């Protein structure tokens, strides 16, 4: 197997390859699309933005479906629907099998054949792994992990979303 560099390193600043939404003060968010805590916190994180850079942090042993969901988000991203898929997956965690993903793709108006090919692309898996490794090197041990100016921000420090 390829040996990656996994020693400690600060969180890389958001760059052109990151998935970024919004403007203003930047939060870098490592999240697991199979993680209930991430889903529950997503609205709060969104409300606290600013600019959000989303980074993949699937923990497959704990959430066996996570790798497929992260690949689905990347594949949707190739059709400019990355955050639309993230929002969709976090809004409804109960429907994450393949036929449910196809329905989501349809609802988002994406090309299903292209989505199916893209989500199995090795480059997609490598892209997800790259984010995971940068989080791991920054000491992420649980999700969601939110960084502001390269420092971990406890979730409770983020403002409450207005109802």
């Amino acid at each position, binding site marked *: 197997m390829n*040996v990656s560099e*996994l*020693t400690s390193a600060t969180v890389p600043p958001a760059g052109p390859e990151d998935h970024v939404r919004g403007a203003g003060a930047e939060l870098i968010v490592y999240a697991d699309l199979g993680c209930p805590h991430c889903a529950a916190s997503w609205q709060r994180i969104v409300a606290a933005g600013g600019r959000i850079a989303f980074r993949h942090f699937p923990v497959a*042993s*704990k959430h*066996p479906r996570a790798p497929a969901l992260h690949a689905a988000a990347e594949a949707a991203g190739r059709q400019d629907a990355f955050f639309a898929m993230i929002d969709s997956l976090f809004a409804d965690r109960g429907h994450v099998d393949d036929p449910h993903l196809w329905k989501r793709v349809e609802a988002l108006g994406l090309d299903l054949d292209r989505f199916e090919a893209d989500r199995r692309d090795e480059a997609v898996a490598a892209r997800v792994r790259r984010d995971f490794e940068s989080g791991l090197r920054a*000491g*992420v*041990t*649980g999700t969601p992990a939110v960084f502001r100016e390269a420092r971990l921000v406890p979730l409770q420090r983020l403002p409450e979303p207005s109802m």
Partner: protein
Amino acid sequence: MIEPGTEAPEFTLKDQDGMRVSPSDFRGGKVMLCFYPADFSPACSDQLSIYQEVLGEIESRGARLLGISVDSIWSHRAFREQLGLEIPLLADFHPKGEVAARYGAYLEEYGTSNRSLVLVDETGVVEWVHESPTPLEIPGANLIFDALADR
């Protein structure tokens, strides 16, 4: 905690399958002992599932990772199944916490081990230790790779 440079205390504990495991079984390679407080607790679940994600990377650097807590082999077996872990989990169950105590990793007040990592080198000598300031603080997997890279 046990100090780097001292000989790692030898022990034999049963793993989740009832197999007897000793650090000396792995002589010639490194062993990372991961003492943790309790199967199924939220922090321990996070910790071990993150380590599971990079288990191959740890092993490719010539180290074996062994989890140790005061839970029984049956609890270990269920915990591994629930989290999809392949990391061997050793039962420091009876006498309770005896191995943790020999490594200076037992918290009498809580009746569990603390959360700590102990790297034993190829010759059975403690090379590096990390003790979490509180049981809620999880050492990131990056610290394991730092320890394996420096030596």
